[in-house]
């Protein structure tokens, strides 16, 4: 089973991101789970969303997980939230930041011995440029596709179009650009 934990703030689209990812993964015949932990806080408050992916039906309902991937879609949360909580020797981190990777790691003691597993991408900037709003979930998906190697980019984009079908073409195009840019820019 692959487990993914998203760190985000309400309104940034992590829940939608996790569900979209689940939706697309399911098209490959795998079993998926997507859920979130909400507080009562309003737009802007920290929240965590989760994905599980497996070859057989997923019947665990615990929120606890040892994540294989940690996706941080808010730059500040990398500093303030416990992003390495319950991680493994192999956990990969994809972090939204405007900083260079070395700069970021120097500011987060918990990541210092994990540098080879940390990837950075500026999802905020990408979403502002492509979608016009600070909704970093879509670019994060692009970065995840690249880092995980789980899909071909084109396959993912095609399926994402289906997930976004109810939105206006402009939004769909923006999301496609965002995913593609993040796929190319994550490092």
């Amino acid at each position, binding site marked *: 089973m692959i487990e993914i934990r998203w760190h985000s*703030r309400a309104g940034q689209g992590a829940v939608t991101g996790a569900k979209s990812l689940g939706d697309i993964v399911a098209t490959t015949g795998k079993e998926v789970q997507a859920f979130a932990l909400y507080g009562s806080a309003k737009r802007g*408050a*920290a929240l965590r969303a989760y994905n599980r992916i497996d070859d057989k039906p997923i019947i665990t309902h615990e929120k606890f997980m040892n994540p294989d991937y940690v996706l941080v879609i*808010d730059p*500040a949360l990398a500093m*303030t939230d416990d992003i390495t909580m319950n991680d493994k020797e192999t956990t990969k981190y994809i972090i939204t930041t*405007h900083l260079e990777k070395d700069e970021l790691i120097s500011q987060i003691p918990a990541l210092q011995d994990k540098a080879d597993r940390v990837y950075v991408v500026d999802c905020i900037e990408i979403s502002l440029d492509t979608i016009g709003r600070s909704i970093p979930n879509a670019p994060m998906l692009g970065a995840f596709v690249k880092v995980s190697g789980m899909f071909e980019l084109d396959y993912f984009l095609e399926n994402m179009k289906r997930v976004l079908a109810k939105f206006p073409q402009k939004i769909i195009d923006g999301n496609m650009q965002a995913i593609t840019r993040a796929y190319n820019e994550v490092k």
Partner: protein
Amino acid sequence: MQDLKLKAAEKRGIHQLGGDELVGWDEVTQGIILTSFDGDATDIVHKKAEERNYSDFNSYTATVASWRVKKPVFNIDVCIDCQNCWVWCPDTSIISRDKQMLGIDYDHCKGCEVCVEVCPTNPKSLLMFNEQEDLETALSQWPEKKKKEK
């Protein structure tokens, strides 16, 4: 805020909202009661924030700085102390003392930009900058007075 020494400063921003200091059942407060202050709080209304004995339960001691994507920067040279930003700030984050606007409480500001919108000066005394921009750089980029469009 640059010149204002908040007496309660040691209590500022010590908490992340979201429960970083969880305690066991034997230590939670009886009846889920939260006290706003430590010690006697009579006449608290006549005390300024820096004179108050806020308890750890008071959200004044917490921070929501991480909510911001962009931050407002205050340019005291342009400000006319109209207090528009003070009255309409939804996060009690405009620090005014003795009818003067002193600055922004960055522990509580969520970056909503209302203060910038309601600022009447030309150029505005409050503008949004990237979170990581330092004050000096921001002030150096301040726009000139705009001519009235007819």
